[in-house]
């Protein structure tokens, strides 16, 4: 089994330029720069690489909307979205801390493909170690001539700038990220126009997830066919899967895309801790629908997760066990989402706090049956298209599936006027 993204990564260490180059690093870049930018885009498009940030859109296709040629604006930007703030998600951190040059190489390739004039890494503010490693790596890459003027004597210039975010969940949203990077309030923008056409500072911009970018050197180096062959299903490549919760070995592993949920939880995460039973999992971070026992054999790729009623999202599973109150669990998530709403559109700004308050009341034994109606109402009220961006619909995914799968637990709270998981009556 090949693990191109993590093959260099050693726990507790960061790969420097020398080791990175020894293991074949920057070969992909060299190959890329011998080709036309448009050819890189086609290769990436045909490799089937999908955005690893959660939306799962074909990366090459996304690039193809960037205006190219003489009439295109001189300023174009590439941005690595390293604002990994999805609760339960820690896959990009592994790549940032373990093998920063892989990201930088990927960014140079992507920048070359769209002929970007500047590139940015938009980093989650708590990732201080990642930021340090990236800073070092950027300096090394400059020194070695991979960044700066006339890269590898091709005439192509590029600088990468690290921007450490002020720390809001919404900054991870592609367009809110642009506003944040411009120094404005992190409020999403409406599409169209897509950032590919009018993005950062009004110029054509590509925002790609860290993991997505890390795939690029390998795709260019070893070819699209090789890349496609890595996955179990037909979606191509590997995926960083993660598991958190009461399992024996929580962690993050690079596995062929299409590995089943059962294999991830039972083999790689070592199964549930003794004395705990699996009740459900958010398969791709906090803003995805619960999958439960019956979905254990679901193949964890974009289309299958969708079929099962959820989303692959970031591919990092958050496990709900039988000793954890599902209402409290969901309340915790909704509290986060309500707090992280940017405050721009009404349903999200005023709907999420209401949901949070209702869940809090139920959890504290103050819920009434009508509250279930209020929760259900919000799952449709905050559905896609009703809100300005995907934050609130995402926030409704764990809630709507919890209402479906754990309804009895909610009712138990209401009927018994307490949380059955708490020892003391509150």
């Amino acid at each position, binding site marked *: 089994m090949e693990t191109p993204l993590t093959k260099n990564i050693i726990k507790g260490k960061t790969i420097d330029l020398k080791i990175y180059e020894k293991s074949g690093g920057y070969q992909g870049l060299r190959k890329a720069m011998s080709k036309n930018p448009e050819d890189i885009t086609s290769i990436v498009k045909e490799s089937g690489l999908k955005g690893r940030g959660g939306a799962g859109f074909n990366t090459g296709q996304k690039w193809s909307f960037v205006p190219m040629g003489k009439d295109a604006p001189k300023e174009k930007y590439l941005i690595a979205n390293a604002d990994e703030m999805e609760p339960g998600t820690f896959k990009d951190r592994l790549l940032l801390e373990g093998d920063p040059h892989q990201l930088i190489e990927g960014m140079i390739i992507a920048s070359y493909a769209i002929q970007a004039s500047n590139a940015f890494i938009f980093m989650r503010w708590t990732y201080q170690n990642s930021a340090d490693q990236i800073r070092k790596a950027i300096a090394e890459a400059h020194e070695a001539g991979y960044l700066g003027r006339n890269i590898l004597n091709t005439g192509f210039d590029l600088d990468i700038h690290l921007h450490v975010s002020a720390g809001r969940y919404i900054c991870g949203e592609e367009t809110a990220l642009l506003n944040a990077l411009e120094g404005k309030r992190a409020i999403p923008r409406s599409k169209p126009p897509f950032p590919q056409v*009018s993005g950062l500072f009004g110029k054509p911009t590509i925002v790609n997830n860290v993991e997505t970018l890390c795939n690029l050197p390998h795709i260019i180096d070893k070819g699209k066919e090789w890349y496609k062959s890595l996955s179990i299903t037909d979606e191509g490549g590997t995926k960083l899967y993660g598991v958190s919760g009461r399992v024996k070995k929580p962690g993050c592993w690079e596995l062929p895309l299409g590995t089943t949920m059962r294999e991830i939880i039972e083999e790689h995460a070592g199964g549930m801790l003794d004395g705990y039973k699996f009740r459900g999992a958010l398969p791709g971070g906090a803003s995805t629908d619960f999958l439960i026992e019956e979905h254990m054999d679901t193949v964890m790729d974009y289309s299958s997760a969708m079929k099962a009623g959820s989303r692959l999202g970031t591919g990092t599973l958050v496990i709900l066990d039988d000793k954890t109150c599902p209402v409290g669990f969901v309340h915790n998530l909704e509290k986060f989402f309500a707090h992280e709403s940017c405050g*721009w559109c009404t349903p999200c700004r005023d709907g999420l706090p209401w949901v949070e308050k209702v869940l809090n009341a139920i959890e504290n034994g103050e819920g009434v049956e009508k509250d279930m109606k209020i929760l259900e109402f919000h799952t449709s009220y905050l559905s896609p298209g009703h809100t*300005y961006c995907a934050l609130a619909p995402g926030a409704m995914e764990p809630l709507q599936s919890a209402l479906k799968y754990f309804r009895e637990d909610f009712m138990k709270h209401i009927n018994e006027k307490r949380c059955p998981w708490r020892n003391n009556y509150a």
Partner: protein
Amino acid sequence: MKKDVHGGIIMPKIYIDNKEYEVKDGKSLLETSLTLGLNLPYFCWHPKLGSVGACRQCAVKSFKDADDKKGKIVMACMEPIKDGMHVSIKDHEARKFRAEVSESLMTNHPHDCPTCDEGGECHLQDMTIMTGHTYRRFKFNKRTFENQYLGPLVNHEMNRCIACYRCVRFYKDYAGGKDLEVLGAHNYVYFGRHEDGVLESEFSGNLVEVCPTGVFTDKTLKKHFTRKWDYTSAPSVCNLCSLGCNTIAGERYGKIRRIRTRYNKEVNGYFLCDRGRYGYEYTNSSKRILTPLIKDAQSEAGFKQFDVQEVQSNLKTILSGSQNVIGIGSGRTSLESNYALRTFVGADNFYLGMSNTDYELNHIAAEILKKSSAEKYSLNDIENTECVLILGEDITNTAPMLSLAVRQSVRQKPMHRIDKLKINRWDDKTVRDALQQEKGPFFNITPAKTKLDELALINLHTDPEGIGEFGFAIAHFMDSTNALPENISKEYSEMAKTIAKTLMEAESSAIISGTSSLNGNILKAAFNISEACAKQGKKTGICLTFQEANSLGLTLLGGRKLSNIGKDESHHDSLIILENDLYRKAPEQEIDQTLKSFKNIIAIDSLMNSTTRKADYLLPAGTIYESDGHLVNNEGRVQRFYKVFVKEEGEVRSGQEWVQMLSENIDTDPLAGLKNIFDYCKAIEKEYDIFKGLADNVIPLNFREGAQKVAREPHRYSGRTAMHANKTMDEPTPPIDKESPMSFSMEGFHGTPPAPLTPFFWSPGWNSVQSINKFQIEIGGELRREIPQLSVLNKDSKNLSKEYYKMDLSDSKHRNDKSEWKVLPLYHIFGSDEISIVEGGIKELVPLPYIGINPKSAKKMEWKESTLVKPAGEEINKGIQLKFLDGIPEDCIGIPLGLKKMPFVELEAWQSLHVWEKSKDKD
């Protein structure tokens, strides 16, 4: 825009609730629906601010085609019109969603409507009712905020906020304000300043109308609060600068309570400046003259009251006995009042009450406007112009709404890129994200730094003579028949070349200038530039501003120069001063001298001022709200203002009515036969070709809607049977309006009257200012039943000579000695105007007197900002503070005109300064 084979425009067909409509292309669905008269609730959208899709209130169902039954929810404000589109407003899911949005907006709203100033004219109330949300399910505590002190004009009550973001979008994005922000996040977004303090924008008062609920309310109104339905109101025109913005003034219990915007597409659109909105408080001042007064040395006030009969008999004797009566007109009162006085005293005895400089400049400006081949640009035209040049005007302070228009004009050229990106121009947030700081060409040539500097491609600050020269240099580079001024520096010459080139290349351009720099060469240069542009066949407009609301009207009526009084041989003994404080128009000693030469001085005015205090007889003039008449604005637009109410207190009459009374008194009665405004307009157009059509613009007295007059009061007006109970138990008959087909009561027509007669905007279900939607032919377009306004300058100018002006070098005065500074006139929105500063909120905001100086020159003189100085030759009992102003040329000082204790300035002036008191500051 699609065109058919014959080049005609094909109107897209759309289907709303299965009904077919032919609509305009390029608009949003929300705007289109409102234009069609359909009721669709909204909050974040504003006709002038465009769409942002934040509030989600205007949701409708969009269908793929006629067969699609499922459809999906979309926001009408973000949906462009597409030919053949199918949408539903009535769709159950869409209605339900809109009610749900209302429900969540209201979760934290305090429901304090009974004690909220917005109550009864609240867009939030209207929209909540429209969505059908009634039952409240939210059972938790509401969040609360602390409110801020935002100055004397705008009140802040954040708890009412529904976070529509319109305030910051207007204040920052549209009006360029810097000190109102959205702070915080999630449902704790806070719209306010970084700390308590006076809002800095000249347009802050518009927050009151832009805010859909009671967060920002009129603080001056709070002092004498009245509900919208309890006003007696009438269409009026602002008389606090020369732009003539349209207003609605509301009265109750004999007091003007507030001013609101009266929409006029060409002039002020949806907004007003703060001087215009809040400058009404003088009308309720204790300094008002309410009864006829006669000089009385014995009394403490210097005057004693006398009644109208006494006035008549006394003045009859005086005026009949006078060999010659001199009249001085006024730039802040109506055409009719001035015409009445001019006719009464005779043309040879009529003096325009302007300073000598202003007199000269107004005549040059009027001549330019008459003969110019360029268009006379309205504010709306300026807004839509791609290239703007300002010569010598700090418009933010002399004509504030013009600066708001310029702020929009710099966005016009970059809009071509927006079109290329296929972004809809109304998609405001997207447009701003795409354009960032990109601006079109704007050149700002002024004596000192201005607020518009931040927008300009080139800023140049120099003395008025320098601006004139520079203007002539631009004209030279556009058409070399204009000579290049001799002394112009290489640097300036290059700059002028760049500006000339840009103007010549621009698709449309506007030249803005005016009289405030007190220099005729500036105006002449503006003409030469606009003429050179127009000769190229380019779309060019000229826009000149004046010192007073009716400066242009008065100039066109014609009269003599103030300084000529008493210069001729003829003997005269009586003087009538119409609504004018002469001490603002000439040096104190000169006016003292002039006044002394008359035996009898009759002053007609509304407020006590330095001039009225010297009068022997004082007649109480009505303010603009208590009078009828016309004002001619800076573009020559003749606009009617109507009496809002009849002042019961005292003996207040309009200037024209007083002059008429004086005239009736004497045997010759030169005003015989003139009974009302209509008669006056007839007489004026008979005497002046330029005013032809004036009388046609007057809506006849016998005009009726059905059989009804237009009611000044809404049908919900309350208290009429009780409000006079302290005087009589009978309900008094309302006064009869002899000047307009409007009633001073709630009886009458309440629909959509001819636009100039609209006393207030209201429509069923639309109680807020947003009801304007229902009065427009299309959103942002003309008002329904508009009557085209007369523009006296849009006459045929073909026969007039278009010859370029030559630079006038005759009057150049020279510095007497090295200690003298060249004087620059400076202006303040709150301070430079005569009447707005008398009372209230604006009075609080008037700066203390100061003398502006470049910090570098001050350093050379070893002066600090705390240094007090005294202009040589002025008798003052306190030193004047220095104020460091970076932009001021180093050999100049800035004198803020109009501020109390500031010396009168006529250019070209030189002034020495003495230190009043050495600074005590030791460091």
